[in-house]
């Protein structure tokens, strides 16, 4: 049981190669992307990519806490993978913080128009929002949110590691985890909304949607499930994580399947109500996507985030097949990356956005960073929570009912 994770060479190499690509893309972007479009591309990609990965890490903390609160045991066999993703919140928070501050300090008005004195002077709607949309509050909230997420992730990880060292059968840590989970869930419920309003919704400064926080949550959660599946399968392929079998894979498949539908529901509810009401202030947001430059990506977004997982993961056999789940997880991950892309790009660059070398390069850099960080975190603790009271339930876990 005292299995230790040995970082496979493939993980290390992939991570290093991807990070190098990311750094190269960043440097090439820094020096190569000129002009109005180039600069906008440079910054908006950094913004949405760093936030995308931060939200995914936060979602993993959410999953950890939700599962602890529900006293679930299905995830215990790969609980350490979830932990390894969530302990990276501080890293991604720092990156996102640097990017956001650079945007504010560098006066990149095209990202946050409400920082532009000229916009504020002319646009009464945006100007009316300044009690919320102002640099001071933005920074304060950003710091509180990022600190809160980081500290709670470290705290929960600490409890989990303490349990490893304690005696078997001690339940104190279970209750402690539940307590901090409840604290986090309450904090997350508020911060996921507030952060999404500040960081993302305010890019389209005139526009608003009450659903926005839900939407960001749904997208990041499903991306997280894809990433967990990919990690679990990759680690299993390297000959480790022997407790995980098809029963556990089945669960992950079900989560990808179910939350793809959930995301679609949230997407549809938001899009549909704006489409139906057809109020210019609201529907303008979708114009570049539905009828303009981004039409292809807009439709692709729906196909790969709904139709693909829905149709291909429907059967039991598909969810229990390592290859199928891997492929779908990759597609879904790309799909939700694209979805985040569509949250930012059509507003910043309504007619010129592309998915090119820079976008892909930066994203690969983040992916490489994630692989590296997760591997490192995994290798620092036993691969299973050896003293967890539900470990045995995870061993006899059956994904079929009964």
């Amino acid at each position, binding site marked *: 049981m005292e299995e230790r994770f040995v970082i496979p060479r493939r993980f290390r190499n992939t991570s290093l190669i991807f990070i190098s690509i990311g750094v190269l893309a960043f440097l090439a972007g820094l020096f190569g992307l000129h002009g109005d479009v180039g600069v906008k591309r440079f910054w908006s990609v950094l913004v949405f990519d760093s936030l995308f990965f931060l939200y995914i890490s936060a979602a993993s903390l959410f999953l950890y806490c939700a599962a602890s609160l529900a006293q679930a045991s299905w995830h215990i066999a790969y609980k350490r993978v979830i932990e390894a993703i969530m302990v990276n919140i501080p890293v991604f928070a720092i990156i996102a913080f640097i990017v956001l501050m650079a945007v504010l300090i560098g006066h990149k008005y095209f990202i946050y128009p409400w920082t532009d004195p000229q916009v504020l002077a002319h646009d009464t709607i945006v100007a009316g929002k300044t009690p919320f949309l102002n640099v001071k509050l933005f920074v304060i909230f950003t710091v509180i949110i990022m600190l809160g997420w980081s500290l709670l992730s470290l705290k929960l990880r600490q409890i989990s590691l303490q349990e490893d060292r304690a005696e078997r059968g001690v339940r104190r840590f279970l209750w402690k985890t539940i307590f901090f989970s409840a604290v986090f869930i309450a904090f997350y419920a508020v911060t996921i909304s507030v952060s999404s309003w500040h960081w993302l919704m305010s890019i389209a400064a005139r526009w608003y949607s009450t659903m926005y926080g839900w939407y960001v949550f749904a997208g990041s959660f499903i991306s997280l499930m894809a990433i967990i599946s990919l990690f679990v399968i990759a680690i299993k392929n390297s000959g480790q994580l022997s407790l995980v079998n098809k029963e556990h894979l089945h669960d992950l498949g079900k989560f990808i399947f179910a939350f793809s539908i959930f995301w679609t529901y949230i997407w*549809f509810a938001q*899009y*549909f109500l704006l*489409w*139906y009401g*057809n109020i210019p202030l609201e529907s303008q947001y979708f114009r570049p996507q539905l009828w303009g430059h981004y039409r292809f990506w807009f439709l692709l977004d729906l196909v790969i985030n709904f139709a693909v997982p829905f149709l291909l993961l*429907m*059967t*039991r056999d598909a969810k229990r097949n390592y290859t199928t789940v891997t492929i779908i997880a990759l597609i879904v991950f790309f799909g939700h990356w694209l979805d985040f892309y569509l949250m930012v790009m059509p507003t910043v660059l309504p007619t010129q956005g592309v998915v090119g070398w820079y976008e892909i390069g930066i994203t690969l850099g983040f992916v490489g960073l994630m692989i590296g960080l997760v591997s490192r975190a995994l290798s620092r603790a036993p691969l299973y929570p050896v003293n967890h009271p539900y470990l045995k339930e995870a061993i006899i876990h059956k994904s079929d009912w*009964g």
Partner: protein
Amino acid sequence: MAIKQYVVASFRDEDQLLPAVKKVRMQGYKLYDVFTPFPVHGLDAAMGLRQTALHTAGFIYGALGTATALLGMSWIFVVSWPLDIGGKPHFPLPSFIPITFELTVLFSAVGTTLTFCWLNQIMPGVKKHIFHPRQSDDRFVMAIEITPKTQVEEVKQFLLNNGAEEVQVQTAEEGWWYGLFSKREKYDDINPQWSVQ
């Protein structure tokens, strides 16, 4: 309706039933069926039953519902009577989604449930022979069909050796027929009583 004879054994525990079922099959006795008060997991595998294809049926019914809703509404709004409603297009696809979804679910649920009833041959007014009055309570009941080759005493002994609580021979109509459970069956008088009622 064929009249058949069965060796019927009752078990007190599903943990005794499962090995017994496997052994009966290995012995080559003609296992008629097993009656349990709740779904015993591993029983279908032990009996060598196939997985049910009910899900596939559900998918097909659902697809039928989707098609009915989408084609129906499209034809009505585009061909039969195009109408300008609040400036919406004649083919307002988003507006069709809720009803399409509902009909998909409706067709799938109703279709699958009817298929379920049909496959199991269950319906109000259907009657089947009940082998043991407590097979829906706490007894696990196995019925072995008696063929001309069956050595009844040997089978009885075999079952008792494998954990059966009580074994008896019953005569009954096979399958189902229209009838009421308040009416006595023809062979009720000749069939022995169970010691546990």
